[in-house]
Each structure stands twice: as structure tokens, then as C-alpha cells.
């Protein structure tokens, strides 16, 4: 399966891009070219050159180092947010599907509709207004928005599986709904979840950038791509590199993850797979 994935150019390109950013985030724990809080006003707003590869910002900090640490923030936020969505959303969806048409099903799915009805950013602003702006609150806000996505997806996938004979056979073997959900349903919807996971991951990175951009995400001095963009806004006319690099980082990561998601969807969909051969 992994081999087949790497035979698809989309997956390979996406994987390389994602790998570079994850690598940069991991390396940043041990080493960055300059400390990210190393303010050096004398050296401010330098263009890219040999000493500062991506240049410096208005406080003279090294942008390359900030991008590396910023990757850490983005990836951490996205992973935890998708994690919240999967851990809470999938069991809810499975439970709803196993009790289709009952009050429980209605309760779970209408609750999901309620969350879906609010834009993610609105929830984030609400949470940060109550609990204060921080990376943790941004994670929670994005995570909550992920719950209905995964709940709906797993319910939909599970519903069609519940009508299959092998589930009936498991019921004849005396297995209960919870056990069937985890033993028979879940393994058969992992494909769906992986594909949706990569897409939600890229959306999470975008959401984090957006929240930081309006000042509701990670707080200074923790670097964040979104806030770097916000800071560069007033200086973009005479120091375009300030906006260019964090912007490119966001675009590339999201593009890479989407490419991976697309490729995985094609790979798991037997119909598309047959066409490719």
C-alpha cells in the first residue's frame, strides 16, 4: 500500500513538502540558525542574504528561524485539533450509526448540526473572549469544529456497513453494538478517516494562521506564521520578504497535505484505482 502510494506523483510531492516542514519543526527543538527571541534592532529589515537566509524582521529577528519554530506551532495545533476531532467525533458518529433512527442518533447529529452552524472563527473568538487568547484555546476552538466533520463522516460510512451481511453475521455470533462498531465498522472506515484527516490537518493549519493573524492564536514571543503575516502587513511595500516567507510556508504546507489527501483518496477508491492502471 505504501509502495503504491509513492508511485503516485501527487503523494510523493505532498509527502516531501510535509516531510520538510515536519523536519524543520523537529530540528527547531535542537537548533535554529539564530535564537527566535534574539532581538537585534541594528540589523532590522534586512533582505535575504548569506547570514540571514530569509532576511530579518522589524525587530532584527531571523525569519528563517522563526519559520522553523512557527512550523512547530502550526503542526502542533493542527495535530491536536484533528486529534480532538477524531477522538470525540468518530465514537459519536459510530454510536449514532449503531443506534440509527433512535433518540440518541438524533441527539448526536442535531448537536453536530448546531456546532456546524457556527463558523469556526466565531467559536474561536467566543472562546478566546471568555478564556483569553492563547495557542491552547486556539487548539480547542479548531478541535471543536473538527468534531462534527468526523462524526458525520464516520456515521455515513458506518451506516452503509451496518447493512452488510458480515455485520449481521457478527450479530448472530452474539456481539454487541459497541464491539461490532470497533471490530468491524471502524477498520472499514479508516480509509475515509485518513483522507479526511489529511484535509482537516491542512484546514487546521490555515485556521491557526487565521486566528494568529487576528491575534487570537499563539501569543508573542512564540512565533507563528499567521502573526508573522499580520506583523508584516504595514511594511509589505518596502520589505516584501516579511510577508513572502510565512505566506509561502502556509501555502506550501496546505498544498502538500492536500496533495497527499487527494492521492490517498484515489488510492483507497477502487474505482479510481482501476482507471489508473
Amino acid at each position, binding site marked *: 500500500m505504501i509502495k503504491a502510494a509513492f508511485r503516485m506523483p501527487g503523494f510523493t510531492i505532498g509527502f516531501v513538502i510535509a516531510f520538510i516542514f515536519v523536519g524543520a519543526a523537529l530540528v527547531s527543538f535542537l537548533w535554529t540558525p539564530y535564537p527566535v527571541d534574539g532581538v537585534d534592532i541594528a540589523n532590522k529589515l534586512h533582505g535575504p542574504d548569506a547570514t540571514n537566509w530569509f532576511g530579518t524582521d522589524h525587530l532584527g529577528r531571523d525569519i528563517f528561524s522563526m519559520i522553523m519554530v512557527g512550523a512547530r506551532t502550526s503542526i502542533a495545533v493542527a495535530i491536536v485539533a484533528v486529534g480532538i476531532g477524531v477522538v470525540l467525533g468518530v465514537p459519536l458518529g459510530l454510536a449514532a450509526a449503531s443506534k440509527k433512527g433512535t433518540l440518541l442518533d438524533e441527539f448526536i447529529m442535531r448537536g453536530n448540526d448546531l456546532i456546524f452552524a457556527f463558523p469556526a472563527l466565531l467559536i474561536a473568538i467566543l472562546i478566546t473572549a471568555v478564556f483569553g487568547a492563547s495557542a491552547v484555546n486556539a487548539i480547542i476552538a479548531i478541535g471543536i469544529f473538527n468534531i462534527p466533520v468526523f462524526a458525520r463522516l464516520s456515521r455515513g460510512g458506518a451506516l452503509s456497513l451496518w447493512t452488510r451481511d458480515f455485520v*449481521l*453475521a457478527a450479530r*448472530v455470533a452474539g456481539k454487541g453494538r459497541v464491539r461490532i462498531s470497533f471490530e468491524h465498522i471502524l477498520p*472499514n472506515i479508516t480509509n475515509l478517516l485518513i483522507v479526511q484527516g489529511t484535509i482537516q490537518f491542512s484546514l487546521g493549519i490555515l485556521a491557526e494562521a487565521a486566528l494568529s493573524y487576528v491575534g487570537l492564536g499563539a501569543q508573542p514571543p512564540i512565533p507563528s506564521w499567521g502573526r508573522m503575516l499580520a506583523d508584516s502587513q504595514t511594511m509589505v511595500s518596502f520589505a516584501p520578504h516579511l510577508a513572502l516567507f510565512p505566506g509561502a510556508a502556509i501555502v506550501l504546507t496546505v498544498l502538500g497535505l492536500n496533495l497527499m489527501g487527494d492521492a490517498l483518496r484515489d488510492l483507497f477508491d477502487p474505482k479510481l484505482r482501476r482507471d489508473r492502471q
Partner: protein
Amino acid sequence: MSLLEISGLNLKIGAADILHNVSLAVEAGQVTAVIGESGSGKSMTAYCVNQLLPRGAAAGGQVLFDRQNMLALDEASLCQMRGRDIGMVFQEPMTALNPVQTIGAQVAETVLIHGEASKAEAKAIARDTLNRVGLPEDQFPLSRYPHELSGGQRQRVVIAMAIALRPKLLIADEPTTALDVTTQAQILELLKRLVREEGDMGLLLISHDLGVVADVADRIVIMRKGEVVEQGTTAEIFAHMKHPYTKALFEASSHAPERGDNAEEVSILEVADLVRDYALPKKSLFGKAPKFRAVDGVSFTLKKGESLGLVGESGCGKSTLTRAILGLEAVQGGSITINGEQVRAGHTVPRNLRRNMQVVFQDPYGSFNPRHKVSRLVAEPFHLLDDAPKGENRRLAIAEALMAVGMHSSDADKYIHEFSGGQRQRIAIARALIINPELIILDEAVSALDVSIRAQILDLLAELSDRLGLSYLFISHDLSVVRAITDRVMVMKSGEIVEEGLTEAIFRNPAHPYTRALLEAAPKLEEMLQ
């Protein structure tokens, strides 16, 4: 010059050889039937005629239709011919119609696409064609939607679409396989009538069922593994059967396994006045939801070692009854007694009683979780035991169950996709056997199998029943199979058992009019042979 002449047809899809040197002919005004089991290439032969081949297919040889070589035509001229000169009827009437278009629009579409008529004329043609296929205007206006029709009526609409432009050749690919016996008989009758009425229309009928075509076809072509093994007029084929495969196919079609008489006077399953209601969608917000009674006061007794048949058409409630007996669904009235222990309506079937029953389903492809290995699939019913074997004992039990159904013990480590349909059905039986139940419910267990595989599975079932003293509740719509494997039979209609008795007695002397109708509609292969 025949209407359709296929000679030396070869077909490759990718690297796979699908057809090899196929030659056959369809005369105008006659019916040629192509018979074969799955994978014999019978459908692909038909698709070669109108060039609806999958991507990567390369055909060689000659397909002469109306003096034109279809293999040499370009796509534009093929589009011209499809629908106008060659009509096609598919197997599954449920998916062959567009659910959001009216039947009138769909029949008229064929006419309009070919630019043969104005909109008003197309509508008139559609009306006329629907009348001809037995959907009269007063009951079936053009404005009907497919979901308002039954399966047989939908298949009539599909046929109307195919013949609207009075094609010279009609290709019907398993047109009755998805239908009930009585509906099947009506559709076959309709096809026969249409060929007769049109006068010069040829029909290429593709089927896996010898019984179905025996009555309809003028010529029969028997295919196997992409080759024609025998062909001739129906009378010739039935009289001589030169090729051993033809003989084998005929024997398998009417195969009855040898069975001992094992029925004892102990009843293991008693069903009394069983009622199963389904709630229908509410008509108003506060009104009570209306009910649909799927099983209506069914009572019967199944003795130990006996094989009891349950016959009925789709929607008669036989699957609902199965689920109720298996304890998968609550019942609203009556009782089920298993081994002397009674379970009343409103109670669930306890685990210790469930242990006595297992089930084999129809679809060998949907019955297994594709992500588990055979060992885990077969061992699933161990969940019902309090002291399920572990470790080495478990492995031995799995091997024993697999060997009992003629599989190899090393198959336990494989995944289910490595097996054919017949092998999967054996594994399904192994799964049912592993906890040594006394009763196995066979829910259309051989209906999806090829005749030769079906014969093998029937033999296996007979042998297991003789050896292990198993009882079967054998549910099927296929009367010949039920006759071959059961001691007693019940006929079910609209949730009720309308007739019950010894299998042979009922088949010889059906008392209820519905039983008689079923038996008359069933294809009669044996009579054709005499």
C-alpha cells in the same frame, strides 16, 4: 446472411484473454441464447457487438451486424447504431433507470437522441411502446417515476427503452436474474411476444440459467472460459449434448444430492403465532405511526435432523422471519421455542439458545469483513461460548471446521479476497459449523452461485447434515433447489404461510393457488429433457 454474425472473435482486456475464437449467429426474428457460468465471457461477447467494452479492451476477428463490421466502425457511427439498430436490456432494473426522470421521458429520450422524431412524436412513440410492453396508459401514465413501479414493471420500462426505435437486434443481458420467479416468467413471455410481433428483430439472450432459456431460445450457444463449447438449435442441444461440459451443466442444473432420512421426532425449533410489525413513517405529527405487518402469525415446527424449506418471493417476509428466529429483531407477538426453552414476544433470545443456531447468507462477497483473516472470521461465533477454546485448541477447532467443508487448514491465514465465491460460501458454512450448532439457517445460501458450484455446495450440505445430524431451515426463491435439499417445505406469501407439507407431495400436488402459480412460473428443465 444472418442478422448478426460473429466469427473468430478474440478479446483481450489488458493482458487477460477474455474471449477466444468465438463464433455465433443471430437470425432475424429468432432468439439466440448464450449460456455460461460467471467468467465464461458471455456478457463480453454481447458488449463486443455494440462496442461497449471497458477501457483497455482489444477485440479481433469479425462482428458482422447487418453487413457492417462493428469492430471497424468509429465511435460516432456506433453511437448512431446503439439504441436505434441495437437495443440493450440490462440485468438490474433498479439501476438501469434514472430515478429522477419520469418513465415517459426516459423512453422518449432514446427516440429524441437519434433525432428520429419531434418531441410530440417521441412522446407518442413512448406511449405506444409502453403499451406494447404491458404498461397500459390508464395505470401507467408517462408521468410515473421509476420508484413508483415494481421490479418487473421497471424491467418492462427498460425493455420499452430498448425497443422504442424498433431495433433490428435486441441484446438482453440476464434480463430476469434479479426478478422473482413469477415476474421472470412474465418478462420472458414478453420478450418472446416482442420477437414474434416485430417479425424481423433478432434477440441475443444472455443467461446463466438453462431453465430460463430452454423455453424461449431457438438456438443455444454454450460458453465456457471465453470459448464456445457447443452450439445448435435448442432441440439439438437438448437431444444430444455432445460436449461433456454441456452434460455437466445440465446435470448440475437439476442436481439433487443424495440424502439420508435423519429427521427425529424431537423438535428443536417451534415457532408459534409469530408477528413482526414495522413502524412506517408517521403520516401526521401527532398521529400514531402506521404499521406494516411483515410476518403475520407464522407457526411451524422444525424437527432435529430435518431439512425444512421456506419458499417465497421477495418481500414475502422470509428474511424478516429469519432475523426474528435468530434473535436479531424483537417480535411483537407469538413465541419461539428452541430446544424446549420458550422465548416470548418482547424478550430477547438468550445466549445459551443462540448457540444452537447459526446462519449462512446469500452473498459470498458481503458476508465477510474484508480486513480480517479467515481464522478470525471463522472463529467469530466463539463469542457465544462461555469457555471458547484458546491457543492451540482454537487453532485446531478452526482447522477442523475448515476441513469439514473441504477447505485446507492453511487457508486460515489467508484473507477472504483470495477465495472464489464458492470457496467463500464454504468458509461461511465453516463459520456456522464451528460452535457445533444444531440448526443452520441457510438464507438463499446457494442463490448467488454458479450451477456447478451450487451442486457442490448442496452435496456438502447434504453430507454435513447426514454426518452431524444438522437441521436446516432452507430459505430460497429457487424451487428446484428447495426440492433437491428439503424434506418438508413451507410456502410464504405476504407474511403468512399459505401451504406446508412434505416437499414431494407439495411439488406434485400443490393445493394453494399461489403455490400452483409459483410452480407453473418456475423454469422446467426436466420436462424439456424428456
